[in-house]
Every structure is written in structure tokens, then in C-alpha cells.
């Protein structure tokens, strides 16, 4: 087991990792920017190292600073968390070169799945069906037109290096192609420095279904069922639930087994999530996240498996402590992402948190690094808390979520709590549509 783990992240996920380490008897090293000197995970960690000024590129994305901190602190492993360097193959490789364990997949798998085009090719080889589209990056508009004509409109134009909806455009007919391609290329260039694009069939009413996998270094792979992240705003997840109200047991087992087979064939290790679009009974692979995900707690709630604990365990080379047959799904779980943002304009709302009251009681879990007196920095993403609720049934879960949203209170800054109250009151959502 590791003696000391450096947590190369911030916010609630850094706290989540710290908690898992503490519960495993592992010492923690928090690295932080000057803006996060008072952050909860910094206060709770056994050691902390300031690695740079507020901008992420100079701190949480500052590879030399983080590796120096790990070396100086004598950490024997680094947990990259979510975002920042978590899917950076170069970082993973450099950590390993310094004789420190990277708690995550191999650099090869990080780079493979980091490239949306190569990822789709790999998925197809691994037996996962993909959305019909261009074989790879488009050479030019002529090829784009040809592909679009073949697979039929509407089509979705995506940046090869993209994510989070950036560099993504829909063309409903041939006439819109030229403009959509131009816009998407411009966005992609701006956000990812590359305007390599690809193109695929646009699904009109797909559900976003993702399968959580966990793999050790001995070839054992299990899945923890699916998460339904269909409820999004501008391609950003707002609320997730597990299991999906849209899948039946047969579909669940089928896609689960397919993904496990694929991961075994790939030789994947650590935690990961394979994301699909689900429409008319068909699963189309869209991408794989080679890291922990923000919504991982809902899978933990329905399986009683501590994903971060297991991720750390397998990183030490330990084999999985259970088989697929030993994983059963108990009840229903929903996660609400509480963001420091205006519930109407969705503009970020950083600042001093004058009061924070977390809801409690049976079946309610809050993952948050907030505390009264904490100042939400303006330099990072606006996620301030995750409200996770579990119930025996989806209805019990919804009723519990409703009362928990009545209790939670964040003072001093604006948040999207009101938005969540509206969402769960919407008939469509209650019906699982």
C-alpha cells in the first residue's frame, strides 16, 4: 500500500481523494495555487505545497511544479483527480519516470482515448459499435459533403481534439454544411489549437448512457452498471442518475458485458467510463473517459463500492477484491451538481460564502469542499457541491432529493439550487423522459 499520495487537483474531488486516503491510512499531500491556500483539502491534508499563482496553467497544469512537489514531499503516488492533468499522457509518463505511481491508466491508453478519432477506431476494433460517420479526420469540405450525403442528414461536425461541446456544430442539410464546418473549425482552433474535424450521424433524441468500469493490473475487469446523464445544458451535465430509467435488465447486462469484453481486450487498468448515445435500443460509442468522473458517487451509492478506494488499491497492483457476480445494484441514486452560478443567466458567481448548510439524514450524501467563510475563487470551474441522494426506488429517491433541496442552503454567492428545484418538479423528469 502507498505511504503517501500527492493529490494533483483541487476542490471537492481533491477532498474526495483525501477522504479515501485517510480511510486507507495513507498520508496526503495537497498541492495548491495561492488562490487555494485556505481550501478545505489543503487544511485537512497531512502536508501541503503551494505550487503557483492562481492561473491553472501556472499551478494545477504546471507539471514541473507538481512533480517537484511530489519528489520533495516524498510521495510514492500521484492522484490526478478529474480534469487538469488527469488525462494528460505526458504527465502520467513523467510521473512514472520519476519512480512515482500514477493512479490511473497507462499513458498509451490516455493518449489513445484522448484523440476522439483514434478512440472511435479503437472502439470499433474492440467490438463497440460507433455512430456512423467519417472514418477519421476529414481531409476537406468535399470529403465532408460526401460522407454526410452517405450517412444522411442531420449530421454532427465535431473537433477531433474536442470535448465539452466546444467545436461542435449540427448541419441539417447540405446547404448548411459549409458554414457549420467553418464555425466548428474556428471554435476548435481557438479551444484546442487544432481544427482537425470529423463528422457523424446526428441522433435526434439520444440518451447519454455511460458505463462505469474498474480494472486491475491482472486482467480482471468489472462494470458498475450505467449512469444516465441525459439531462444536460449546452452539453454540460447538470444532473445524473443511476441506474437509467430507460434501460431494462437485458439491455443493461448486454452492454455491460460488451464493455467488459472490450476493456479486457484493450488491457485497460484503473477506473474508466465508456460513454454511449442510446437511441431506439442501440448503443453508439462516443468516447471513453480514462479517469474518475464527477458523477462517480451515484455508482458508488447503488453498488456500495468505494470507487476511489478501489482505484487506489488496483494502482498498488492489488487484484480486484470482487467479481462481477458479486456486484448487485441496490435502489436508485441521483446527483445534482451545485454550481456557483446565477440560476437564470448561468454566469459564474464567485465570492465569499457567508453560510453553507448541508442537508443530512438517511440516504443523503454531500461531496463538497465548501465551508462558511470560504471564498470561491474566480479562476476555476464553478462546481461547489455535489448533492447525491439514494433511495430504494426512483420515486423514493426523487422524494428524498426534493426534501434535501429544500434543506440545502448556500449564502453569499448565487447558486443553481433553484434550477435543480425546478428540474425535479418537471413532469418529464419525474417520468424519466
Amino acid at each position, binding site marked *: 500500500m502507498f505511504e503517501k499520495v500527492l493529490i494533483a487537483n483541487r476542490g471537492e474531488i481533491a477532498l474526495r481523494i483525501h477522504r479515501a486516503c485517510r480511510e486507507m491510512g495513507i498520508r496526503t499531500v*495537497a498541492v495548491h495555487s*495561492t488562490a487555494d*491556500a*485556505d481550501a*478545505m483539502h*489543503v*487544511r*485537512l*491534508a*497531512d*502536508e*501541503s*505545497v*503551494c*505550487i*503557483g*499563482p492562481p492561473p491553472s496553467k501556472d*499551478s494545477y497544469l504546471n507539471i*514541473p*511544479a507538481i*512533480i*517537484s*512537489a511530489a519528489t*520533495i*514531499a516524498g510521495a510514492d503516488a500521484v492522484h490526478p483527480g478529474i480534469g487538469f492533468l488527469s488525462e494528460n499522457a505526458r504527465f502520467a509518463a513523467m510521473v512514472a519516470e520519476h519512480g512515482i505511481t500514477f493512479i490511473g491508466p497507462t499513458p498509451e491508453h490516455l493518449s489513445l482515448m484522448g484523440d476522439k478519432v483514434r478512440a472511435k477506431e479503437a472502439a470499433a476494433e474492440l467490438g463497440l459499435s460507433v455512430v456512423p460517420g467519417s472514418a477519421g479526420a476529414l481531409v476537406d469540405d468535399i470529403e465532408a459533403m460526401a460522407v454526410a450525403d452517405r450517412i444522411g442528414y442531420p449530421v454532427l461536425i465535431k473537433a477531433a481534439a474536442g470535448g465539452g461541446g466546444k467545436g461542435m456544430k449540427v448541419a441539417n442539410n447540405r446547404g448548411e454544411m459549409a458554414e457549420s464546418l467553418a464555425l466548428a473549425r474556428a471554435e476548435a482552433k481557438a479551444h484546442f489549437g487544432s481544427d482537425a474535424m470529423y463528422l457523424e450521424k446526428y441522433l435526434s433524441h439520444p440518451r447519454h448512457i455511460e458505463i462505469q468500469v474498474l480494472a486491475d493490473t491482472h486482467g480482471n475487469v468489472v462494470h458498475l452498471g450505467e449512469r444516465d446523464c441525459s439531462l444536460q445544458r449546452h452539453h454540460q451535465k447538470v444532473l445524473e442518475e443511476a441506474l437509467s430509467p430507460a434501460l431494462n435488465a437485458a439491455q443493461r447486462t448486454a452492454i455491460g458485458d460488451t464493455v467488459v469484453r472490450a476493456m479486457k481486450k484493450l488491457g485497460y487498468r484503473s477506473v474508466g467510463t465508456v460513454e454511449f448515445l442510446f437511441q431506439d435500443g442501440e448503443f453508439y460509442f462516443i468516447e471513453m473517459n480514462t479517469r474518475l468522473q464527477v458523477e462517480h458517487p451515484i455508482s458508488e451509492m447503488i453498488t456500495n463500492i468505494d470507487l476511489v478506494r478501489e482505484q487506489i488499491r488496483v494502482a498498488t497492483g492489488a487484484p480486484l477484491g470482487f467479481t462481477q457476480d458479486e456486484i448487485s445494484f441496490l435502489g436508485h441514486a441521483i446527483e445534482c451538481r451545485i454550481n456557483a452560478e446565477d440560476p437564470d443567466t448561468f454566469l459564474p458567481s464567485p465570492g465569499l460564502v457567508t453560510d453553507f448548510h448541508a442537508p443530512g439524514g438517511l440516504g443523503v450524501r454531500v461531496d463538497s469542499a465548501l*465551508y*462558511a*467563510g*470560504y*471564498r470561491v475563487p474566480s479562476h476555476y470551474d464553478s462546481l461547489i457541491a455535489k448533492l447525491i441522494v439514494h433511495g430504494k426506488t426512483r420515486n423514493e429517491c426523487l422524494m428524498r432529493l426534493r426534501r434535501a433541496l429544500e434543506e440545502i442552503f448556500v449564502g453569499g454567492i448565487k447558486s443553481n439550487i433553484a434550477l435543480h428545484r425546478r428540474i425535479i418538479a418537471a413532469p418529464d423528469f419525474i417520468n424519466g423522459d
Partner: protein
Amino acid sequence: MPKFDIDEALLRKLAALLTETGLTEIEYENGEQRIRVNRGGGQVTFAAPVAPAGQPTPASPAAVPVGPPAGAVVSPMVGTAYLAAEPGGTPLVKAGDRVKKGQTLLIIEAMKVMNPIPAPEAGVLESVLINDGQPVEYGEPLMVIR
């Protein structure tokens, strides 16, 4: 009563020692003379603040981070600080030296790269706040120039 004159430089030196050693209080007595300096624990150090997790920031030392002393040279990176050009060599500078702007004061090793740290301004090197071979973090006071 006679004029009560105090040794400002000594107080600054003790303050610097607090930073360097991570102490929160120093008390010094010499015959009839006795001096004591104390800092509420907000100093930058590799140890996390001992404030209770949920303690409201305004009541916590960490909430009022102690700024570096005026004229302090702070570390631009995380690394290991060396006061000499080569192991066991003579220090590049020592307290009391007059330093020129841009003159190398110390070297910080990060990722096996030696980074010379230049004096941001000319003046007299009042104090050295770190030891040779000591790990330093971003923003940590290294030396004070007056």
C-alpha cells in the same frame, strides 16, 4: 524613565527565524534583557494549517496569510534551494553583503534543472531565511534585501 530603545533589526531577524524554522514563538532572555516574538501560525510552511476543518476563515490564522517581509525575495517555483554554486561551495551571498540588481542570490533546483535566482533590486542583503538544500514552495520568502 530612560528612553526605551529597541533593536529593530533583531526583531526582524527573529521574525525571519520564525518563518525559516516554522516556529510560532521565540522568547529570548539575556541577563536583564528578555525578548519574545510570536506568530499566530499563519506562516507558509510544508505543514498544513492546524485550524479545525470547519473553522470559519475569519477565525483561522490561515485566513489572514502573513505577507512576506518588505524587501523579501520570494521563490518563483517549487524546488530545492542551494545557497552555493556547487555542493559544499561558499555561499553566493551572505547577510550584510551589498548586492547588485540581477546578481544571483541562490539556485533553486526543480526537475534536475538549476535555476539561478537573481536579486530583484540592489541593496543590502539583510537576512537569509532558508538553509542550504532546503525545499521551498512557490511564494516562500528566501532572503530579505534592504
